[in-house]
């Protein structure tokens, strides 16, 4: 930050939280925020807004009535972002949540990220079966209607693909947005039956150590899950944010493993085989394994790391000199709750504590913010999360130093958003 901008901030009576324009959180708490707009109200500066206030047209005509299933406003342009269709991979691919257009911590069901290995199966719940067999006293089959009669639990948890943010490891992609770079994370309330209840009903034999979970999609996507996890907090999820799990999320039922890489939460769950050893499926050997610089590959890397990303301002946005912004983003950890989020505007040289705006739930997204006044000079915005286990989000350089650049999975590194003198925000590497 230049000397003149320091003087300017002093004149404006702004308390600084860190260098390059990061302001004390009290400026956020005191300021009147105008909707979800990026720039903060000028009332902070005590100036007359100069807005002519009158009754708008829509306040003078009755609107349409009720609707059977509500839609988002036509003015709210919210879309998942998909890759290109690959004719050699029918139904395969991923779509990403529009993180930069969302607030709070819950991802609307229509915008929850997707990853399919053979498309979304059209499942009639009356024809869907869940089988539990293998090393159990009594193999069982469950119907959907019967499963709805079980006592359920509801938990708010994030779900993140272990390939999320992988592009940052090889660099490039200056046009990346929060969505395109980090949109393979979402958060929802998942309601379902503790898997331990169903495994208990079948009676797990003492020699069992793993379960194999297989989906009813065309790929019969399977993953091996340690029995300890399955008996601890794995959920057979039937509802997502209060409604039946969406088809693209596994309707009529999915496995949900809190805090673990998304691929283990097998969708369209139809088979659980209790076993002594892991099954060595394609998606836990050829894929979802992390090759290190010494060419050994880490297998069964389950928990997702502590992580955060600033969602606004972020890639492809722009800022105006002299304006005050609510820098905001999300943070999460597979190891517990988020304890602290810090923000830097000078590429990590100085940090200020952000305000955590949401509940700090176990393995769920939190929303953070900090006010920032852009003085027109180049800036690099970063966020850094710390979780309840004491894990601190690492820099990109330290992730690369530890795990190299062959691997594309489990990258929790700090995102840097560069702001140039024209106010353009881009993905940068520092």
């Amino acid at each position, binding site marked *: 930050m230049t000397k003149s901008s320091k003087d300017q901030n002093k004149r404006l009576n702004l308390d600084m939280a860190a260098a390059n324009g990061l302001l004390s959180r009290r400026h956020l708490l005191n300021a009147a925020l105008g909707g979800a707009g990026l720039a903060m109200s000028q009332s902070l500066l005590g100036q007359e807004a100069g807005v002519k206030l009158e009754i708008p047209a829509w306040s003078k005509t009755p609107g349409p009535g009720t609707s059977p299933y509500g839609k988002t406003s036509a003015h709210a342009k919210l879309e998942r972002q998909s890759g290109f269709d690959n004719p*050699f*991979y*029918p139904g*395969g691919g991923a779509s990403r949540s529009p993180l930069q257009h969302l607030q709070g911590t819950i991802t609307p069901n229509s915008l929850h990220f997707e990853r399919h*290995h*053979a498309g979304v199966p059209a499942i009639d719940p009356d024809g869907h079966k869940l*089988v*539990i*067999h293998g090393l159990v006293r*009594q*193999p*069982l*089959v*469950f*119907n959907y209607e*019967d*499963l709805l*009669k*079980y*006592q359920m639990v509801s938990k708010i948890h994030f779900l993140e693909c272990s390939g999320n943010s992988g592009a940052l490891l090889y660099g490039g992609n200056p046009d990346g947005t929060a969505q395109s770079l980090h949109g393979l994370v979402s958060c929802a309330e998942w309601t379902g*039956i503790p898997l331990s*209840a*169903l495994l208990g*009903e*079948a009676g797990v034999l003492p020699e069992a150590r793993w379960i*194999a979970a*297989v989906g009813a999609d*065309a*790929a*019969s*996507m*399977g993953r091996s899950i*340690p029995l*300890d*996890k399955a008996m601890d907090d794995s959920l057979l999820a039937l509802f997502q944010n209060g409604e039946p799990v969406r088809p693209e999320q596994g309707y009529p039922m999915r496995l949900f493993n809190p805090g673990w890489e998304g691929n283990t939460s097998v969708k369209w769950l139809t*088979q659980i*085989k209790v*076993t002594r*050893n*892991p*099954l*060595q*499926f*394609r998606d836990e*050997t*050829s894929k979802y*394994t992390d*090759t290190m610089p010494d*060419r*050994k*590959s*880490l*297998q*069964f*890397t*389950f*928990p997702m790391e502590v992580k955060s990303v600033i969602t606004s301002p972020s890639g492809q946005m722009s800022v105006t000199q002299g304006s005050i912004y609510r820098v905001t983003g999300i943070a999460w950890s597979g190891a517990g709750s988020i304890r602290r989020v810090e923000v830097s505007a000078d590429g990590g040289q100085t940090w200020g504590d952000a305000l955590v705006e949401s509940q700090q739930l176990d393995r769920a997204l939190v929303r953070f913010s900090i006010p920032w006044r852009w003085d027109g000079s180049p800036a690099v915005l970063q966020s850094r999360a710390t979780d309840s286990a004491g894990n601190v989000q690492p820099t990109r350089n330290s992730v690369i130093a530890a795990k190299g*650049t*062959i691997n594309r999975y489990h990258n929790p590194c700090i995102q840097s958003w560069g702001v140039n003198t024209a106010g353009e925000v881009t993905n940068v590497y520092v």
Partner: protein
Amino acid sequence: MFTFRRLLKTCALFGCSVTVLVSTAQEQVKLGQAITEASLAEFDLIAEPSGISFPAGSGTARQGKIIFENRCSVCHGSNGEGNSAATVLVGGDMKSLDSPLRTVGSYWPYSSTVFDFIRRAMPANAPKSLTDEETYQVAAYVLYLNGLVAEDEIMDAKTLPQVRMPNAEGFIDQSHIQ
């Protein structure tokens, strides 16, 4: 266990009034219907590394070449060369200086996975359309293309899981970190 007595004690300790929300764990209903493993013969398609759950049947690479040409080569090429890095099945070297090409031959640690994946997920446009016999033949051909079995070597429930993969020792199990 966090007993009721301990709860009362804790409340007394922190001076909070004892308004205990009773949420006793209810006995779950038990609505699973009993089945036998035998009833899963056409449902359980998992082929385990031990070979235990492999189906009957057998095949050789020579037989598999024809099916591969008809059903697989559109994506994987006639000789497993693929039409992209995602579909190449042969070659690669984990010791290369550049980022290694990871294929069945260079990367996959278990031969059982080749059979298991083809059986359940391939061909991508018509999964589960190969017979068990054809699956053995195609799996044998993919292993043959990687120089891991001979052209007329018979692959079945006993022999296929025993095919040694070059990168079998290339993995470190992290499942203890949960």
